[in-house]
């Protein structure tokens, strides 16, 4: 039972990582990061039920992660809006002003 949850979480994590590196749309990049963080939540909740030593701590940790990830997403989208106003695009590969 545990193995299937862990595999699912690992697959989600990898999809998120792939998206964060490859996707050209900056909004999708932020979404991919959320996916990575959510795969961690799945891990934590699965471990708290079926882990070697089941305990509630995992669910508490997942709650913390959800709250912090929401804050992070809010800041990320706000920064993206500022960037969109300055550049007029959300294509990640056009954000190249700093590379000279």
């Amino acid at each position, binding site marked *: 039972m545990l193995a299937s949850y862990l595999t699912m979480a690992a697959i989600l994590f990898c999809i998120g990582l792939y998206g964060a590196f490859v996707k050209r749309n900056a909004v999708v990049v932020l979404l991919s990061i959320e996916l990575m963080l959510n795969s961690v939540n799945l891990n934590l909740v699965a*471990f708290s039920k079926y882990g070697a030593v089941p305990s509630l701590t995992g669910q508490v940790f997942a709650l913390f992660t959800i709250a912090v990830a929401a804050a992070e997403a809010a800041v990320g989208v706000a920064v993206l809006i500022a960037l969109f106003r300055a550049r007029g695009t959300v294509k990640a590969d056009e*954000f190249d002003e700093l590379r000279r």
Partner: protein
Amino acid sequence: MAYERTLQAMTWADAGHMAPELILIAMMAVLIMLDLLLPRRVDRSLIGWLSLASLLGSFVSVVWRIQHQADQSLASEALGLLNDNYRIDDFGAMFKLLLLTAAALIVLWSLGAMKQGSSGQLVHQGEYYYLMLPATAGAMLMTSTGDLITLYTGLELLSISTYVLVGLRARRALTAQAASSEEKVSAKPAEAAFKYVVTGGISSAFILFGMSYLYGLTGSTHVGEIGSSLPQAVESFRGLIYLAFFFMAAGFGIKIAAAPFHAWAPDVYEGAPTPVSAFLAVVSKTAAAVALFRLFYNVVFPESLSNGSTIGHDLFRAVLAVAACAMIVGTLSALRQHNMKRLLALSGVANAGYLIAPIGLSFYGVHSNNAAELFFYAAAYLCMNIGAFAVLSIVAGSRRDADGSVQLRSFEGLYHRAPWTAGAMIIFVLSLAGLPISGGFFGKLFVMMGAASSHAYWLVAIMAGTSVISYYVYFGIVRQMFMRSSGDEPVHVPAASGIVVWLCAAATLVLGVYPNGLLHWFEHVFSVVGDLLILR
């Protein structure tokens, strides 16, 4: 070994022990309200002075606690608050002093830099000053965590505050827009912030993924309990434990900006306001290194003592490999860099190697003072880096062109334009290069001696080699300052920036002439068993 953990309410005594952090958080709330209520015409440097005062107040309360413990001869007693989630001990307290000093210096310097020229002026000054407080509080939380959840919360408090700080734009962006609507507004701060959010988010996800496995395999998030149940878990889940540590090390590597994970640093430092670059270079890096130090020594060290252990040794070796890689890559890529902020970012990558090297040099034989090495190097790094960034912002503020980027040639003839500032810069350059009569020299020397005494001679060779190569980088700056003459008018040095530059220069010299003072104080206060290790 199932621990049933009980919820513990926070008492007034706990609040007293957490006073340094609570002062910062409470003052942030007060300053947010003040910023909203004050009319627009009131100068926002008032908020800057108040946040400086709260940083100093927090500093005093940390010092008071260290003294109080020493007076009552409780030197080896560490407190665990909130069911041991939060550790109040001298290891954390000493590093908190460093972090608070760094933050206070940066706020003082910003008070000068905001007055100078157009390039340093931020549009949202109030936000800038009060966001420094939660960022510092997050860094302080990281130094005294006893639990993975607390560690993660502190890390994110630091990160999210700095995401916003990086994205604050300078006033010149607005005037440029007003002057010619055709011309594109500089998107550099926002672009830097976006890159930082994305890399920071990925690194948090890596750290969390590693933490989730560590929790699942040992059944606890408390670092002491993880440490004591790790040897058991290693027997049955060796591969997964390696995976967990690999993910966590990679995530912290990104936060510290050590070599294979440093690609974001030059971009972000270049786009961010200069004081924020210095904050990232000093406070974030030190806090992450300290958190990693405490985590590794509590989680892995007990396992590495047992016979036939491999995981502890492999992990320490991996940290050393990252350190070596950071030194080599940071130094070599700084060779071709002409943009000063990117150059300092890459020099910070090389310095990150020195910061994490003491973590990897675990206790072999006679080598027992790696915490002192880390502390001394962090102190020297603080002085020289904040000083160098402050000189850079003084030079940037004196320039007429609105581009705002500081190239190596902007230092041309600085000796003729601002002799005293150039003199201070010499001290910082000596310290960065690791030459004598500077704090950087002894910092590097102590780390090298530590490496030699734990028989990591290859690391000593890499340190010596990269130091020699880095002379070329740093003396390029000296050559620009002294050998070239330039017709520009004298540089105006704002009083607050000047004070910060000279405080840093004086501290660098003191550390270079009399390193034993700081070192003995640290060793007097700190004990490995009482302060660092969390035994359950």
